[in-house]
């Protein structure tokens, strides 16, 4: 991935030409078809020339709701290019993309690897002009508005645990972290019996924060035993539209992640850790690398860490633009340099993961909770949250709110509390229509469920999952058909294409949504959509293909009438019109 990304930047045109790729295959002594397959899977790569600066504008839920179509309009006006087109001078090329992980400052875009948020038609012009003088670089130069700590909501008081040191600790200085008691939990752990650590984590009730909510301690105890290499893998792929929590954590407190991984490594007898970070998160990658280097110098990573018998090191792997690579087995395939196809289970990663060796995959938020649990005890951790769902949860607020950003609240906060207290309600004159919880793979909650505790189990009973903690608020101005269209286009774009129900099903669902949006659907298409999504739910290999049923049925539960209205060719819907003309003009999907 790294080599290819470097080559692409060096090309000056954001491309990988076939000749270069043949060279890579020969150099690595692998079949050419493997390289072609790899490059073709990850959206960051392209074998056709693009331009010196590649503009990717996000069209996922949060950005769409906040008006990403107006951003495309502004670029069209300023540069005269639509999606899939480049300027004649070879300076800019425009693409649409899925979530960039800065949803609280939506709408957003990425120019090469620099992310800019809070876009307005006016800001776009000044940003684009500033690039005319720039040289492409491998480093990031993101806008200030996407800085991790500025995306945190500080008021009113929250139960800050993971966020306690955000903005307090200097992420670039290990001494600052140590000064705040950092790495004390690791010291404490190294003096403990590994099985005791696992017991403590089990006892704390900590459940995975990546989406599935599997009990972390139990997962650790399932990791294969015996004298073989084992791995700790941190899932920092964060691709679920509306999620930006892991980015903030990694940017602002990278050492806490390293500490959590080292403790996990000691507990499961793994001497090597990998952090799989999505390629878009340049700043996270750079800061993590600084932290790793500093920790190595201090003897916190490397051989016999902190003078103990235990050795542990951490390596960063980068993603190449594929949501599905957040699925743990797909992530492992991607780490192995393959196409990001999820694997069938069993075997589970704990038995045969990276390089077919025992591997434990956890989310960033999960691993970062571990040092706190070791320091303060399982009892302390359980003291907040729900009976089967303890601790705090990071909620990512985006959409039509007076205040967006990340908050840390005890598990089970309600929509009412999140919207009114932390989001300060909807902007004046706007009325709540629905909230999307859990991202694209989650579902829709209406007014009736304002008091539903958003933990891991209770939303499930309403056909919704909390997932990674997305709360995207939409007002009366949001068309449910248009919104579902964005979700279903996301799934088609992100399906890995390996298994039949999802590969074909996502395309069919997207097609049906387009029929509604263009008002050429017939009422029977509603049932057809549900029917397809049901086969997908039952038959898909991984959770990606099993998910679309959730947004579809929950959306229909509230807004079936709007879908029926969209069956009438005479029905007016400016929102659908905008999406159709903006996103689909240059072909593609």
């Amino acid at each position: 991935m790294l080599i290819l990304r470097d080559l692409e930047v060096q090309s000056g045109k954001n491309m990988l030409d076939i000749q270069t790729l043949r060279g890579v295959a020969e150099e690595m002594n692998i079949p050419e078809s493997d390289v072609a397959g790899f490059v073709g899977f990850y959206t960051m790569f392209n074998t056709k020339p693009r331009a010196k600066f590649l503009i990717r504008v996000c069209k996922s839920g949060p950005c769409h709701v906040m008006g990403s179509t107006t951003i495309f309009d502004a670029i069209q006006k300023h540069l005269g290019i639509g999606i899939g087109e480049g300027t004649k001078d070879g300076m800019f090329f425009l693409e649409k993309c899925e979530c960039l992980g800065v949803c609280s400052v939506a709408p957003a875009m990425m120019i090469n690897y620099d992310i800019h948020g809070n876009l307005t038609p006016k800001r776009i012009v000044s940003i684009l002009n500033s690039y005319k003088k720039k040289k492409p670089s491998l480093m990031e130069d993101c806008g200030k508005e996407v800085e991790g700590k500025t995306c945190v909501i500080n008021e009113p008081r929250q139960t800050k645990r993971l966020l306690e040191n955000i903005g307090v600790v200097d992420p670039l200085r290990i001494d600052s972290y140590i000064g705040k008691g950092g790495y004390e939990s690791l010291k404490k752990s190294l003096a403990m019996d590994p099985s005791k650590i696992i017991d403590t984590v089990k006892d704390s009730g900590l459940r995975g924060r990546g989406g599935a909510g599997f009990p972390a301690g139990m997962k650790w105890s399932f990791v294969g035993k015996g004298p073989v290499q084992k791995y700790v893998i941190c899932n920092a792929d964060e691709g679920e539209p509306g999620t930006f929590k892991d980015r903030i954590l990694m940017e602002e407190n990278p050492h806490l992640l390293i500490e959590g991984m080292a403790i996990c490594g000691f507990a499961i007898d793994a001497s090597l850790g990998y952090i799989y970070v999505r390629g878009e998160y340049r700043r996270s990658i750079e800061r993590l690398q600084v932290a790793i280097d500093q920790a190595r110098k201090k003897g916190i990573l490397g051989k016999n860490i902190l003078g103990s018998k235990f050795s542990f090191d951490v390596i960063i792997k980068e993603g190449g633009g594929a949501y599905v690579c957040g699925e743990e087995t797909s992530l492992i395939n991607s780490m192995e340099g393959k196409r990001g196809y999820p694997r069938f289970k069993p075997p589970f990663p704990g038995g045969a993961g990276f390089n077919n060796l025992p591997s434990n995959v956890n989310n960033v938020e999960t691993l970062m909770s571990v040092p706190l649990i070791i320091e303060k005890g399982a009892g302390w951790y359980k003291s907040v949250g729900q009976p089967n769902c303890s601790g705090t949860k990071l909620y990512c607020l985006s959409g039509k709110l007076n205040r967006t950003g990340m908050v840390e609240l005890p598990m089970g906060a309600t929509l009412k509390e999140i919207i009114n207290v932390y989001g300060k309600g909807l902007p004046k004159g706007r009325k709540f229509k629905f909230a999307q919880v859990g991202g694209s793979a989650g579902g829709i909650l209406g007014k009736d469920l304002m008091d539903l505790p958003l933990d891991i189990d209770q939303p499930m009973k309403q056909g919704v999952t909390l997932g990674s903690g997305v709360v995207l608020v939409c007002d009366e101005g949001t068309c449910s058909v248009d919104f579902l269209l964005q979700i279903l286009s996301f799934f088609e774009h992100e399906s890995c294409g390996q298994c039949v129900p999802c590969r074909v099903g996502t395309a069919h669902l997207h097609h049906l949504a387009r029929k509604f949006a263009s008002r050429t659907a017939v009422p029977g298409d509603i049932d057809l959509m549900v029917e397809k999504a049901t086969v997908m739910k039952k038959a898909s290999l991984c959770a990606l293909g099993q998910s679309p049923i959730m947004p579809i049925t929950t959306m229909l539960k509230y807004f079936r009438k709007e879908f029926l209205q969209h069956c009438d060719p005479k029905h007016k819907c400016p929102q659908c019109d905008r999406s159709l003309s903006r996103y689909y003009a240059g072909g593609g999907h």
Partner: protein
Amino acid sequence: MESIQLTINGKQLAGHRGQTILEVAGENNIDIPHLCYHPRISKTGACRICLVRVNGTMLKTACTEPVIADMDVVTEDAEISQIRTGLLEMLLSEGCHNCLYCEWNGECELQRLCQKYDVQEPSGVFKNRERTVDTESSNGLRRNENRCILCGRCVKACGEIQMQGVWNFTGRGSSTTLTSDMFAKLGDSSCVMCGTCVQLCPTGALSFQTVLGRGQAWDLKKETSVCIYCGVGCQIDFYTNKEGQLVKAIGNENGPNEGHLCVKGRFGFDFVQSDKRLTKPLIKKNGKFEEASWDEALDLVSSKLTEIKSKSGPDSIMAFSSAKCTNEENYLMQKFMRAVIGTNNVDHCARL
């Protein structure tokens, strides 16, 4: 090996640790439909056709799910049939299937399943994406990807069996396609034309140049034979049409080759029915070959050999015999050289 007792469709059966549901079912003649699974390659688990019900609730892919003690498997019920039909409908609408024009008509696994589940013609609501058709660039293989179900068998056949790695998938999701090498035409690729991918392809997406226009699949007669080219002794199933014309060679899975063939075994059978083949002995007279009787020819050879032997000694003669002859004929050849001519100068092309 540890034996495992389980029930499939109410029948008490025994498997062993490490086997999948599909394997145990297969051994017991219980048919579980599948498309991406093939015994000669690693498991894929992606077509999802082989979903079966385990312990009354869960749906699992039989091709990947290991058997465990007291497992209760049902291979078909109303819901499973519905899913399979749904999946097959999806596959049909994803491609462009018209059996009338297909080389593999009558042998296609997709066709058989669609008939079994009574899958109707796609409604036309969902358009298929045009994919690569390359039927000319290669001398041996034809590719029509509009019939491809992206099962991955060819990718694994080439990568795991022939170890040539010509095929892979590129793109992703609904825009997934095959690529040979780096987006090369098959004829320009590193393909060595062993034909393994074609043999494993469940549909007519990949086929042989020799098949088209030479009779319907159901009219072909199969005869198992041994390859004549080398000492491995691959078993081949040769198919002939109603006119007795050889149509194709398929590796026999029970032979030492376990179904595999190389380009010679796969395509090197045209000589058998070639009109250039000699049917009568020829003797060169006045610089030109002329037809002769067997008696005349044998007399000439015997007199020449006797002459050479007496003039220059037996070791001035050598025999090189052919793999295209039977073992018995080859035995006779060396016997003749040793006993009649009196030399050990014998060799054979299969010693290569």
